[in-house]
C-alpha cells in the first residue's frame, strides 16, 4: 500500500511483452481493486465486525470502559416488549411493502405494455416518488395525514365520510398502516419498470399461438406471462426483500416510533437504545440480529448473482 509501489504501477504504461497472464492478473489487478476494497473494508466490513463485538458488551457508547457480558444482550431481547413489537412490525412491513408494490407494479406494467399513448410520461410519473428523499416523503404524507388540515381527512369530510376522518398517525391501530401507504407509493415504480422491460422481451408469437389454440386471457397470463417473468420476479422479490429490512428513515421521520412504541421497528429501536438511552451494547445487538436475518434471507440471491457473474 505504499505510495512508491502505486506510483510505480501507475507510471508503467508500456509493460514488457511478456504474456504472463498470471502476473498481469496479479499485481495490476490488485492495484485496480485496492481503493474500492480498502474503503469497503474500512467503512463497512470492519465496522460490521466491530458492531458484533460491541454487542457482547454493556458499553454505553460514551465511557472509556465497558464489560464483556457475553450473550446477555441477546437473551434480554425476548423479554423486551418493544423488541417483540419491533419484530412483528418488521415482518408486517416486509410482507406489505413487497406484496403490494410488486402486484401493483406488475399490473401497471401489463397495462403500460398494451396499446397506450404517452408511455414515457406515464412511466416517469409512476417512478417519480422513488427519487424523493424519504424525509420529504415523510413530510409530505405527514402533512397529508394532518387530522385537521390534511388533504386526506378533508377529502373524507368532503365526500361525507366524516366518521372515517381520524388521526391516522396518532393512534396505534392505524399508525403503521398509515406509514406503509407512502412506502407502497414510492416502491411501485421499480417493479413496474422491471416488469415492463421483461414483458417487452416476451415473444408475441407465443400469445398468438395460444389464442389460436383457444386459450383465454387469464390462461395466457398464468401460463405464458408469469413463467416468462420468472427472472424478473426473482430480481424484484430479492431486491425488495433486501430493501425492506433496512427500513428506518420513513418511520423515524413520520412517527418517531410512536405513538408510544406502536411503530417501532428494529432499526429505529436500535437508534433509540444507542443514541438516547445510552445503551450502545444492547443497541448494536439489535442491529446484529436484523443483519443476520437480512443476510440469511438474501444469501440465495447473492449466491446466484456471484455464480452467474463468476462464470
Amino acid at each position, binding site marked *: 500500500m505504499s505510495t512508491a509501489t502505486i506510483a510505480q504501477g501507475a507510471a508503467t504504461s508500456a509493460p514488457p511483452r511478456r504474456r504472463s497472464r498470471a502476473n498481469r492478473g496479479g499485481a495490476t489487478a490488485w492495484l485496480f481493486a485496492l*481503493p474500492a476494497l480498502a474503503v469497503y473494508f474500512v467503512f463497512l466490513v470492519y465496522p460490521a465486525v466491530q458492531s458484533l463485538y460491541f454487542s457482547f458488551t454493556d*458499553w454505553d457508547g460514551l465511557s472509556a470502559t465497558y464489560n464483556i457480558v457475553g450473550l446477555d444482550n441477546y437473551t434480554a431481547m425476548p423479554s423486551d416488549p418493544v423488541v417483540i413489537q419491533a419484530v412483528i412490525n418488521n415482518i408486517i412491513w416486509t410482507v406489505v411493502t413487497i406484496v403490494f408494490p410488486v402486484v401493483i407494479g406488475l399490473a401497471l406494467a401489463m397495462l403500460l405494455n398494451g396499446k397506450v399513448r404517452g408511455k414515457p410520461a406515464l412511466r416517469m410519473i409512476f417512478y417519480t416518488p422513488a427519487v424523493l428523499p424519504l424525509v420529504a416523503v415523510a413530510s409530505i404524507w405527514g402533512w397529508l395525514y394532518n387530522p385537521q388540515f390534511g388533504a386526506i381527512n378533508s377529502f373524507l369530510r368532503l365526500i361525507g365520510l366524516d366518521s372515517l376522518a381520524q388521526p391516522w398517525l396518532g393512534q*396505534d391501530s392505524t399508525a403503521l398502516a398509515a406509514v406503509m401507504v407512502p412506502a407502497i407509493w414510492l416502491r411501485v415504480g421499480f417493479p413496474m419498470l422491471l416488469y415492463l422491460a421483461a414483458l417487452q422481451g416476451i415473444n408475441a408469437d407465443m400469445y398468438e399461438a395460444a389464442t389460436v389454440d383457444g386459450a383465454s386471457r387469464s390462461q395466457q397470463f398464468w401460463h405464458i406471462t408469469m413463467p416468462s417473468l420468472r427472472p424478473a420476479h426473482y430480481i424484484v422479490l430479492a431486491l425488495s426483500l433486501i430493501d425492506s429490512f433496512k427500513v428506518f428513515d420513513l418511520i423515524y421521520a413520520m412517527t*418517531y416510533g410512536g*405513538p*408510544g*412504541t406502536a411503530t417501532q421497528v428494529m432499526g429505529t429501536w436500535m437508534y433509540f437504545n444507542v443514541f438516547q438511552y*445510552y445503551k450502545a451494547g444492547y443497541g448494536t445487538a439489535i442491529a446484529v440480529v436484523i443483519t443476520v436475518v437480512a443476510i440469511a434471507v438474501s444469501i440465495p440471491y447473492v449466491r446466484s448473482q456471484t455464480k452467474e457473474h463468476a462464470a
Partner: protein
Amino acid sequence: MTGRPITRRGFLGLSAAAAGVGLAACTGAAPSGSAGGGGASGSGSGATTLRVFTYEDNQTIGLLRDLTKKFDEQNGMTTTVDSLPGSGAAVYPDKLKTELLGGKGPDIWRIWGGEIGHPFVKAKQAADLTQYYQKYGWDSKLPPTAIEGMTFDGVKAGVPFIAAGIAGWYNKALFEKAGISAPPKSYAELEEANEKILASGKTPLATAGKYGWHIMRLFEYLLETTAGPELHDKLLVGQESWDRPEVVTAFTNFKKWQDKKWIPDGALGLDPSDVEPWYVQGKAAYTITGQWTESGAIQAADKKSSDFGVFPFPTDQSTVRHSGFVEGYMLNAKSGNPDKAAALIDFLVQPDSQKAMKYGQSAVIGAEPDKATLPLSAEWTQGPGRQPFYTIQDQAFPKQQADQYFAIQSNVLQGSVTPAEAAKQMQQAISAWAKS
C-alpha cells in the same frame, strides 16, 4: 486521455486517505470517552468561536442572536446560535445527546432540569460550574429553588434562567359564554366547567398527545389531585408502588376527560404547537401551559392579555401545588473556551438580557415579568407561582421511563389498557428504574 493525470492524482490521494483513516481506525478501536478531536470549537482554551445550541422558536431566535452579537462585540468572539424548536423535550435532547456523543457538541446548550438535564452530568458532558458560580455570584442572582433544579448529585451543573409553572390559561370571553363566572376552585367545579363549556359548543381543554409531554400535564395534575403531595413525590422516586387505587383513579379520570370530549377529538394524534393556541383563537376555552404563552401565543397573535386569564388547577389539597420545572444553560466540559462561554452565560442571564428576550417566566431576580407588558405572567409569578411545585413528570423520569410512561398514557386513552393495568405497568417501569 486528457483526464488521466488528474484521475491518477485523485487515486493516489484517495488511497493515502484510506490508508490514513484505516490506521486511525485500528488505533482508535478501543472506544474512548475522552476522545481526541479537540473540544467543541477548537482545542485549547483560546478558541474565539462559541456555539450555542438552543430551542428558541422562530419569533425569539432573532432576539437571542442580537444578544450574542452584542456579547461578541464586547468580547471579540464569534458566536453562532443553532436552534431546534418545535417538538419540546422530545427531539432536542435526542439531537443534543447524539452531538455530544460524537465528541463535538456545542459550547453552551439550553436544557430542562430534572432527569432531562441529569444524563449530561452523569455522562460528564456538562461542566461543573461551581467556580463560575463563585466568580459571577450567581447564587445571589438566582432563586435557590431554581438552582436546586440545576444541581445534580450535589454538582452545580447548570445556570437556571427559566422557572415555569403549569397552570390553566383561559379565554375570558368563552368562559363568559359558557356561564362560568370565575375559574374553578375545586376538581368538581372543574368538571362542571368542562360540561358547561362543551354545552356552549367549544372544546374545554386544548391539549394534544404528539410527543406525549403536553397531554401528560393533564395526567400529572389528576395524579396530584388523587394522590396528594406526599404520595405524589414518593411515587416519582419509586418509593411507593404505583399499583394502588389513587393511581388507578387518576388514570380513570384521564380516560374520562377524553371519553367526555373535554379534550379535542383525536387529541393523541395532534401536535401541541397546533392545538395549544386554540384558547387564543377561540376554539377552546383553556389550555394547560406555562407563562411563555403570554408573549408566545397571546401577544404573538396581537391579542390583549386583558382578554385572558390564568388560574391554578385546583387539586383539592391543603397545599395547592402546581407542576413546575426549570430550564437553564449548561457548559460543555470540553469547550474550546470555557471561560468565555461562562461569560456568555453570565451575559445572557443579566436582567437586561432576560427582559430583552421577553421571557414571561424568567427566574432571574430582577427580571420578573413586568406588570405593564406581561400582566398575566406577573400576576402568576407573584401569586400562585409562589406555591410549591412538583417536578413535571417528563423531568422526573429518565428518557426511557418517560417514553414508557408516554406509551402507557397513549394506551389508556386508546382503550387498549385498563386504568388498573396501566397502574401496574407504571409500577413495573418505575420500580425497575428505581432499583438500578
